[in-house]
């Protein structure tokens, strides 16, 4: 491993991801910390915990069987169901909420939990599926010989449980940081406020900048409290059982349960992905006022005419951020797994993801618009013009989302046979060559997955987009302005366009990810 290269990548990650947080942390005084928690905010935290736990439990309950059935059994249509199962994760949660609120007679916390679980169960399913696929055929064959399919499942479940819990932890983290969905779905009936509302509202108060930062800390702590165990699971090796002699097992035969299982999986995908998309198609075509193909065409034409540039801007920024993040993530992910003290900087990578978007966005503008950059000695760096350009958007999203591809890459490195790297080293290959020529080819599906994650999250980002100048042109701002103004057909068409743009690379990744085992083995 090349220490200068790792140091350079760490520096880049620090500038993009940690420096904005350091700027904000400097505002907090002990007095701010002392006033954060009281009976009211503790109550909000309790509700937030309940929301996160509810969503995580449901996501676990749906994701584990879905992942197992589509990855390891002969369920009909698995090849289609599995990539479709990723789609809900790629849909903006508010789009799910906008669809479901008109379809079910449920409101408040219950609906928020359902929607957030529907949007996050793919996390559990993806981890579960990957874990089942990592179980060696010889182990499974032994179990089959001893006790049939049920014994194979019982043998595999303890191996699959840690990654599935890791996925559920991530579902929990997503759920507790979302406040648009609980707010939106409790617009009718008793109001259901969550702690993230408190974080948002505190920013509106003058002379409370330190408190606004401090208010975010309980949520950050809660997020880390669930993310770090997930990382520990990964570190323990539970997520990486593949070695160079790996043999892929044959699909388990479900017998007469094949079709009921396929129906259950299809129902889940339909409810979580196809119904919201169908609902938007209906609205885009005119909805209750009378659906027509001409109406649908007109809505799409208007959406493209009004927001084509915004869509292109979002695509440009998200693509650039993902493309910048992946090489950094590759180097850092490799170092995380292989370096002696790699784990020490794992938390630092995760921190930018754990803080609310508002905090990260404000930190970014405070850092990059600092008057210091206009000092005569620094003026030549051009930071003043960088602040208004798209480069800052790319930098911000890279810093915020770098953890995802880095952790994906790190997990893939853990599955990668170390002996191949050692052999290359003995043959005289230097650290950078080993990375590029030996490790990278074996990891490309994971790197593609990491790229997709950054792309999707960057396309969906809203809070920071309001705050950073060039990000203001992004399509999510147009979508939310449309939502505010009640332009149903236009909003639905625009949402569908965004979904299409977001889902396409996700589906491609899902298809590529299925080949990972072949590549690694």
């Amino acid at each position, binding site marked *: 491993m090349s220490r200068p290269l790792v140091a350079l990548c760490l520096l880049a990650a620090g500038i993009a991801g940690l420096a904005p947080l350091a700027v904000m942390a400097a505002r907090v005084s002990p007095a701010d910390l002392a006033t954060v928690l009281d009976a009211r905010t503790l109550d909000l935290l309790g509700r937030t915990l309940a929301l996160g736990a509810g969503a995580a439990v449901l996501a676990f309950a749906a994701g584990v069987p879905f992942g197992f059935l589509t990855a390891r059994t002969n369920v009909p249509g698995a090849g289609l169901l599995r990539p479709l199962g990723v789609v809900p994760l790629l849909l903006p949660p508010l789009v799910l909420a906008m669809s479901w609120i008109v379809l079910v007679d449920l409101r408040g916390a219950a609906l928020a939990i359902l929607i957030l679980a529907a949007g996050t169960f793919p996390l559990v399913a993806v981890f579960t599926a990957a874990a089942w696929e990592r179980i060696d055929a010889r182990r499974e064959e032994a179990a089959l010989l001893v006790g049939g399919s049920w014994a194979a499942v019982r043998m595999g479940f303890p191996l699959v449980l840690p990654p599935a819990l890791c996925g559920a932890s991530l579902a929990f983290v997503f759920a507790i940081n979302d406040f648009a969905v609980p707010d939106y779905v*409790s*617009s009718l009936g008793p109001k259901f406020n969550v702690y993230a509302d408190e974080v*948002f509202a505190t*920013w509106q108060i003058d002379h409370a900048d330190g408190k606004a930062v401090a208010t975010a800390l309980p949520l950050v702590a809660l997020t880390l409290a669930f993310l770090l165990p997930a990382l520990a699971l990964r570190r323990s090796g539970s997520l990486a059982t593949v070695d160079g002699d790996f043999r892929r097992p044959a699909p388990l035969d479900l017998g007469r349960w094949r079709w009921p299982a396929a129906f259950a999986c299809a129902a889940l995908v339909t409810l979580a992905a196809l119904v919201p998309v169908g609902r938007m198609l209906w609205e885009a075509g005119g909805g209750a006022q009378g659906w027509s193909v001409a109406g649908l065409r007109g809505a799409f034409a208007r959406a493209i005419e009004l927001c084509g540039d915004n869509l292109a801007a979002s695509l440009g920024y998200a693509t650039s951020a993902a493309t*910048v993040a992946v090489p950094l993530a590759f180097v850092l992910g490799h170092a995380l797994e292989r370096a002696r003290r790699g784990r020490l900087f794992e938390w630092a990578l995760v921190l930018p993801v754990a803080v609310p978007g508002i905090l990260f966005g404000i930190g970014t503008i405070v850092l990059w618009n600092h008057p210091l950059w206009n000092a005569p000695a620094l003026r030549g760096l051009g930071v003043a013009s960088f602040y208004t350009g798209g480069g800052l958007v790319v930098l911000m999203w890279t810093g915020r989302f770098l953890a995802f591809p880095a952790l994906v890459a790190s997990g893939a490195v853990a599955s990668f046979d170390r002996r191949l790297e050692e052999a290359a080293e003995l043959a005289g290959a230097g650290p950078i060559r080993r990375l590029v020529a030996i490790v990278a080819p074996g990891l490309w599906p994971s790197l593609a997955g990491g790229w997709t994650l950054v792309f999707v999250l960057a396309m969906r980002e809203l*809070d920071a987009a309001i705050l950073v100048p060039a990000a*203001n042109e992004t399509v999510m701002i147009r979508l939310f*302005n449309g939502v505010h103004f009640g332009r149903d057909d236009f909003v639905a068409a625009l949402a569908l366009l965004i979904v299409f743009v977001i889902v396409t690379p996700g589906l491609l990744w899902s298809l590529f990810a299925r080949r990972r085992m072949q590549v690694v083995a």
Partner: protein
Amino acid sequence: MLRTPLLALLCTACTPEPDLVVYCALDQVFAEPLLARFEKETGLDVQMHFDTEASKTVGLVRRLIEEKDQPRCDVFWNNEIAQTVRLAELGMLATYDSPSAADIPPLFRDPQGRWTGFGARARILIVNTDLADPAEIEGMWDLLDPRWKGQVGIARPLTGTTLTHATALYSVVGEEKAGEYLSRIQAAGAQGDVNICSSNGQVMTLVSSGELAFGWTDTDDFNVARAKGRPVAAVYPDQGGIGTLVIPNTVAILKGAPHPDAARRLVDWALSKEVESAMAHSDSAQIPVRPDVSRPAHVRSLDGFEVMQVSYVAIGKQIAKRTEEFKELFVR
């Protein structure tokens, strides 16, 4: 491997310096064509940044505050007034007495010339005429009438015009009554008797779709439902009482604006009768603050209803403090 991302970064890193930077909280769908017209008329290259109300974001006002030490914005075009006054109180706005503002009533002009109001919205009750008779609804207290339990809505007063409205009540009906009203709204919201919605736009949507009988919203949102042919009517509340709150757009130049001359040109243009008329004729149906500005029939004149008598400066001075109180009250 690093070459491609670096090229991508470089390609998106640079933007040409504009002639003017505008932060605009008026809905993008209305403001963008107007500002494009200004660009065409003047030949200036305007960089526009828009706000969004429907998400729970911390918007342009926060960005202006964070950029205070090194302003990037020349002109702040706000779609309401209280946050503009707040910025003036924070010492962030420059003084400019625009000649275009000469005939704008003093109520809508800052005595110190830091901001000027124009094209206003009224805070009204949107009523679904299939579910309620607009004649039976008079004003703010109807929300708490047991007859309408579970059928009424209001946006949470933490942002936008609902925040301004809630703050205004304190100076109009007094501390005690305003506090009682909002506390009762919150308590009813916790029970589901009053629906606390995510935005004024959502109140409009729920009323026009028949899920609610009536609720607080703004005239621009009401006009969307009206234009779509939904069964809705607007009740201008508390006529004969405290009157209906009117919230103007405001325009202001930032202290230390990078392009002050272009900023003054935009302010003069925005405050012209032509622009105010264009705003009245747009889908946002803004009410001109000058009686002689042309407007369509569905846009009321300020002479046509009883306007709530408020000091916008007083509201702006209070708004940050009230936000803290409303947060304690409504985020629980």
